[in-house]
């Protein structure tokens, strides 16, 4: 089939490294996590002199507040500076009865997986031997090799 031919012609398995499935999974997870980010750039205030208050950080040490007398506000900060993952773990849903956050997640689809070229986004019939990404033509495969494929590190 065409898939084989192209694969043999443009990628010599003896030369190109092949990513194992754990690495491929890590890549996918990282890609999906990136889609949850609020910002990709740095906080424009981060590079400013001390004067300016920084973005609240969950892991910010409480050194300065320890020195002051504890106020209601401090109580708030400590109790309420938890990220999503911590809150989810604290909720301890494994012991809860009935539907909950975890059980409510949609099940996998019963429809077959669809495949799109990682470069141009059009339907694809071929899989990159090295990394498992999809591509639609030799040209896109070339672009893929040059830009992502093994160049992406996890």
């Amino acid at each position, binding site marked *: 089939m065409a898939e084989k031919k192209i694969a043999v012609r443009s990628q010599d398995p003896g030369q190109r490294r092949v990513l194992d499935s754990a690495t491929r999974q890590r890549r996918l997870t990282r890609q999906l996590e990136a*889609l*949850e980010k609020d910002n990709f750039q740095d*906080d424009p205030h981060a590079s400013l002199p001390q004067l300016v208050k920084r973005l*609240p950080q969950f892991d910010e040490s409480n050194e300065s507040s320890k020195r002051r007398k504890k106020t209601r506000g401090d109580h708030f900060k400590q109790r309420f500076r938890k*990220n999503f993952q911590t809150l989810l773990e604290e909720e301890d849903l494994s012991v809860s009865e009935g*539907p909950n956050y975890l059980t409510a997640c949609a*099940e996998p689809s019963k*429809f077959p997986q669809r495949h799109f070229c990682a470069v*141009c986004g059009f*339907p694809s019939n071929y899989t990159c031997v090295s990394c498992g990404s999809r591509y639609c033509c030799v040209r896109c495969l070339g672009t893929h090799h040059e830009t992502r494929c093994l160049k992406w590190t996890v």
Partner: protein
Amino acid sequence: MTTLVLDNGAYFAKIGYSHEKVSVIPNSQFRSKTSRLKTFTANQLDEIKDPSGLFYILPFQKGYLVNWDVQRKVWDHLFGKEMFKVDFADTNIVITEPYFNFTSIQESMNEILFEEYQFQSALRINAGSLSAHRYFHEKNSELCCIVVDSGFSFTHIIPYCRGRKMKEGICRINVGGKLLTNHLKETISYRQLHVMDETHVINQVKEDVCYVSQDFYKDMEIAQFKGEDNMVMKDYVLPDFSSIKKGFCKPREEMNFTGKYKTGEQILRLTNERFAVPEMLFHPSDIGIQEMGIPEALVNSINNMPEDMQSHFYKNIVLTGGNTLFPGFRDRVYKEVRALAPVEYEVSVVLPQNPICYPWEGGKLLAENPDFEEMVVTRDDYEENGHYVCEEKFDI
């Protein structure tokens, strides 16, 4: 006594007194490259003349309220003299929270509403429950409805029967407007122009050019055509925030299919991105999220309901939340549910006039309802009985 209705979304706060109109206000803070000393809150966004590279500070993470410092800044602003001038001693609040909210978040919420702000009474409720209330108010002969709420963080499908939330049927798809915008941003950055720092601008591009395809593979074919035959292709003129304040699509007759534009405008050329991005709501597995899309999840959720109710759900599907505004959204949901549902059932999918504010409208109606007093927890009640009374009273 007045009642403030606040649908506290992760992206927009939909807020207003029950006897007035609703306002839609960003529920976040912002920082800009050009005003390097100020943090802008909520609708102060409008004061930023050049929002390129806009930096977001959001109170929510994955749809749950975690960053209380930020949330309180936004609320202080909304409740304060610049906006709603709330007289807490004389005001009740109806406020929304996500499905399966965490106990500690609920308790923080109680404390802040009753102890910090000191509202006279409060009703915590899911936005979908308000939508269901709004729906049954208009269609009072219907017994059931199934609400789709597709907002910033995720999409929920929630069956309601006679105002009762059917917990076993609730389904969450982890695809929302944020993911769509970020995905569009990545795609554009990889294929043509680095826009990773331009969430604000690309979010607008998404709302201006994306649509839900009615025939996905057909549109894929069209989007591959060269030149004028490519009816999917659009050129989007990016804002420069001096002469072009807002981005827009080039009118088709001004599009240059053969070469580059001579004008100095910065252009994005969009083809399959236009419909492949919203497609994530229908096929999350396209980007590796192994979950059902909206129509399949709807049918699955209805199948989990008692059989005698199923036909009622199929003819009362209600679409709410910002993502349902993509052109073609309603028709696609109808088409796919129709194809999956048993032929003998009637299928009806309703897209309200304002799907973003539909829950708020339900909250307004609820506040005017004679039973409202029975539903709220008063401050006295809370002071006497604490979190327990809220847990008992709220269907949450």
